[in-house]
């Protein structure tokens, strides 16, 4: 009996989760009918399955309508076709920035490491000259700032597309839709924007007009309540369209990414 119980333990799990068929299923059911311990185990597992079936994820609806996703997929396919990358260029693309970063780190640390092993300098000797040129550091900072700006614009574009696409109803009678998530995300992005401009205003000067327009749009989204009238969302969508904001975001992101 003990042996049977051990043998049928995993089968009770598979039976409860509907994964057994035919003879295997019949045998497991027969055993559960004759073994009190396995029957009790089966009941416990069936209760667990019921609980898991109530998970709201099972009926979740995507926030983006399929047409919008088709556009995104096509854009990605176009990008991939426009920029075919051989394995060699891919390796270079990864290896060069890593090598450059490693050189900067080594250059920064080298004087400290050397000073540990070098004899103490004689009094009156002048300080060592800086190893990394200020130009190289400025270039590095500029690249980082531009990458951050590109990521920010990309994320902002996603918020605007998602919000304008087809938010779910929160009050069908009153024609109101739920934009709570888009609104919260806009506030996060606005906080990121402030940091972005603090860290490198000159590096992203060319993106400033787009950044300003995006900021304005995000402020409008952020100021929305979570359940708003559909026509308010429509008004925002038209404003984004009128300013060709999504197209400008895409172009500027590409420019910033080099």
């Amino acid at each position: 009996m003990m042996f049977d119980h051990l043998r049928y333990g995993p089968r009770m799990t598979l039976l409860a989760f509907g994964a057994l068929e035919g003879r295997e299923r019949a045998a497991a059911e027969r055993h559960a009918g004759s073994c009190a311990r396995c029957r009790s185990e089966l009941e416990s597992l069936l209760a667990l399955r019921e609980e898991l079936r109530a998970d709201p994820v099972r009926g979740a609806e995507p926030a983006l309508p399929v047409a919008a996703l088709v556009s995104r997929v096509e854009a990605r396919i176009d990008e991939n076709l426009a920029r075919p990358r051989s394995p060699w260029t891919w390796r270079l693309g990864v290896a060069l920035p890593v090598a450059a970063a490693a050189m900067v780190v080594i250059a920064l640390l080298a004087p400290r490491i050397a000073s540990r092993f070098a004899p103490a300098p004689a009094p009156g000797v002048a300080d060592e000259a800086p190893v990394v040129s200020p130009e190289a550091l400025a270039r590095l900072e500029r690249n980082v700032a531009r990458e951050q700006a590109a990521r920010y614009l990309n994320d902002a574009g996603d918020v605007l597309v998602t919000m304008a696409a087809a938010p779910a109803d929160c009050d069908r009678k009153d024609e109101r839709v739920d934009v709570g998530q888009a609104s919260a995300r806009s506030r996060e992005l606005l906080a990121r924007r402030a940091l972005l401009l603090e860290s490198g205003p000159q590096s992203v000067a060319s993106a400033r007009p787009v950044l300003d327009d995006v900021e304005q749009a995000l402020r409008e989204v952020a100021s929305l309540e979570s359940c708003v009238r559909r026509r308010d969302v429509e008004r925002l969508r038209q404003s984004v369209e009128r300013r060709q904001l999504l197209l400008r975001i895409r172009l500027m992101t590409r420019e910033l990414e080099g």
Partner: protein
Amino acid sequence: MQSPAEPGSDRDLLHRLAAGDREALTPLMERHYRRLYRLALSYLRNPDDALDAVQETFVKTFQNAARWDGSSEAGPWLSRITINVAIDRYRRDKRRQATFTPLAEGDHDETIAAGEPSPERRTFGTELAGRIASALRVLPEKQRAVFVLRHYQDMSLEEIAESLEMSLGTVKSTLHRAVLRLRERLQGVRA
């Protein structure tokens, strides 16, 4: 020998994609978008990540349609791409968290479960979703994938074995272990 695909069927659409016909993308996506979204969401538990995963799935489908040999059904093939994309994404996020978030002693997931309401709970607005998410989070990635494919997609054990390149016996024992671990975890959270 394969029989010719019925016009408008999944097979037909995949053959057209393989020939570079991009028009076939829309009907294929309309048919599978929701199902694959729910699959990605049940694994990743984050709506934005799930949308990205579905997007990546269809890009890969277009790029690899010529490699589909037609011996399997299109639906499970798409699920297979989605679950693998989701696993990769989850792995990347975990690595990023491990790099940038200082971990407390012990299990990282315990700290998430015990602290602020989880993102899932904020997103789906139910306590149950949060509890299930934190229970799923402690499963190793293969257990999580096997469980998700069975429970959320109703895939047969054979289809799961094919999708995850595992033997049938391994799928059975993995599902068993995943369920026991989930039960233990959910009871622990309830207590």
